[in-house]
């Protein structure tokens, strides 16, 4: 790794504004670093033009904290003129004619996009193994998965290939790979960041968010990409996320809740030990720890694997080989569409579409989909009750550390069952963040903090305090 890759994005931004570095020199240093983990699918064109624009913003003195800093972008976020594949063969040749709102916002602030990162096909997975293109490796151990679905983005930041990245989080797809790669990943409140141009998986759960080496990096990137967008009807009418109070306040007197359901023996002992040791450190800082119970957490995974595929089966109906993507031969419209979809979607995507179609079909709708929506409401209410008199809810982010590539491939259910810590934030729209809290068997462990709707600034401030208090910064072995 180069010396630059040891710096945080915020530090790089400060050096750019102080003219200690040039935008071009920074971008080239990252763009030419060898991608040994397979983080990227496509590299950006027009790097020079992007650098010139960013440099002129800095020279004019109108740049922000991250102007000129490189960023990697998950390949399910639309980039005008640049291949956007969702790691699927059905979008193998798709070049969006428009930008996602977050891309316009990055461009306006002069961040330099390095390219598009690998993911599980259509963000369906937790290992980046369902990508139709290649496997992404964990910078901590090349035999292990970086997690997913935003595994390419997490591996890029952890592996020193980009100081920042964007991902999307539908059931934990930012937080879990951040945990497994030893970095910070933040899912903002649903609606704080526009989904316009994010290829939809499960619209009521999807949210774009940042990866960085520190809470401050994530907060600064969240500030760039957030804010109301009239192109997204689910966008909240709020100002962009503010970082003004990020470094104020103290841990003393804060109340943090621990749901017993997220601390049972489903998690690896090493993960629980690292999280427990972090909790002990917070207690010493004067944090009040409260034990709570939210029984619906136990069925969160089921609720998610009914609702998300149901929404996906509808959203993915648009991939029919008529308006974009390759079209396979067949006899008549129905067969052309079925051939194209059947052959070009991978097995995990096909499976979720079938599950979604099944739970929405007549005779099964009430037993599965409606009931799942009812449980979703009850689980969300349980979280809201706890958050009435607690600042945040703390848990492991992932019950396991990075697993061996291929080890869970033959048991899709086992991999899905590992999502139980992250799913509730998506169900309720809550903001949640994962930050490193230690190692288990030499691999990173992530700690998750979750707060109430619209409390993104409070959550980031708390996470910043926790990060300072723990003093843990993880760097993969060379």
């Amino acid at each position, binding site marked *: 790794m180069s010396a630059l890759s040891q710096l945080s994005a915020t530090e790089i931004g400060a050096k750019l504004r102080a003219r200690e570095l040039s935008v071009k020199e920074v971008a080239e240093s990252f763009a030419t670093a060898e991608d040994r983990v397979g983080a990227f699918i496509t590299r950006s064109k027009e790097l020079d033009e992007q650098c010139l624009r960013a440099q002129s913003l800095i020279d004019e003195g109108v740049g922000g904290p991250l102007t000129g800093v490189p960023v990697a972008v998950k390949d399910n976020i639309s980039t005008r003129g640049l291949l956007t594949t969702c790691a699927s063969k059905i979008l193998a040749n798709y070049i969006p004619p428009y930008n996602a709102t977050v891309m316009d916002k990055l461009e306006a602030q002069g961040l330099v996009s390095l390219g598009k990162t690998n993911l599980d096909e259509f963000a369906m997975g937790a290992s980046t193994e369902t990508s139709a293109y290649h496997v992404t490796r964990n910078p901590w151990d090349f035999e292990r998965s970086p997690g997913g679905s935003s595994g390419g983005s997490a591996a890029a930041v952890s592996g020193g290939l980009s100081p920042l990245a964007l991902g999307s989080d539908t059931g934990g797809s930012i937080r879990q790979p951040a945990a497994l790669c030893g970095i910070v990943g933040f899912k903002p409140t649903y609606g704080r960041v526009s989904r316009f141009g994010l290829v939809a998986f499960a619209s009521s759960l999807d949210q774009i968010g940042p990866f960085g080496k520190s809470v401050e990096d994530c907060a600064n990137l969240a500030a760039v990409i957030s804010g109301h967008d*009239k192109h997204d009807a*689910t966008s909240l009418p709020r100002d962009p996320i503010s970082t003004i109070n990020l470094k104020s306040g103290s841990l003393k007197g804060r109340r943090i809740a621990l749901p017993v359901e997220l601390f049972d023996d489903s998690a690896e002992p090493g993960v629980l030990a690292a999280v427990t040791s972090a909790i002990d450190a917070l207690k010493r800082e004067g944090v009040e720890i409260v034990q709570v119970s939210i029984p619906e957490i136990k069925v969160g995974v089921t609720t998610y694997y009914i609702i998300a595929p149901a929404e996906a089966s509808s959203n993915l109906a648009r991939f029919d080989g008529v308006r974009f993507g390759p079209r396979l031969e067949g006899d008549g419209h129905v067969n052309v569409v079925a051939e194209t979809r059947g052959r070009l*979607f991978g097995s995990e995507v096909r499976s979720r579409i079938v599950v979604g179609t099944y739970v929405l079909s007549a005779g099964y709708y009430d037993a599965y989909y409606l009931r799942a929506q009812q449980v979703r409401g009850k689980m969300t209410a349980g979280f809201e009750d706890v958050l009435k008199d607690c600042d945040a809810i703390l848990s492991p982010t992932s019950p396991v550390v990075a697993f061996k590539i291929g080890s869970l491939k033959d048991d899709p259910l086992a991999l*899905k069952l590992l999502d139980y810590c992250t799913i509730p934030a998506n169900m309720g729209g809550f903001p949640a963040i994962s930050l490193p809290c230690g190692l288990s068997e030499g691999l990173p462990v992530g700690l998750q903090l979750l707060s109430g709707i619209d409390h993104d600034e409070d959550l980031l401030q708390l996470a910043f305090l926790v990060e300072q208090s723990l003093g843990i910064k993880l760097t993969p072995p060379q």
Partner: protein
Amino acid sequence: MGITLDEVRHVAKLARLEMGEADLVALQSELNALLGHFQDINSIDVTGLPGKPHAVPLQNIWADDEPLVGLPRESALQNAPAAKAGLFLVPTIIED
């Protein structure tokens, strides 16, 4: 009660997914594992509760009534697998 192979075939057809027999059989076994697990949802009492289809309640979101420029035709067609005379060419829907 599990899902039968014929049901898997039927749902795949509804979802417009052409799949070989081996893939359907593999999918059947995966679905049965998943649907078996789904039964845990019955342990939660939801009597009288409304469904919650959205994370954040926003209602009646209207766009301003103003004309906007859409995508240029050539941009809209640039990814089409088949296009002619400025239009998408779609597979035959109505037989002669």
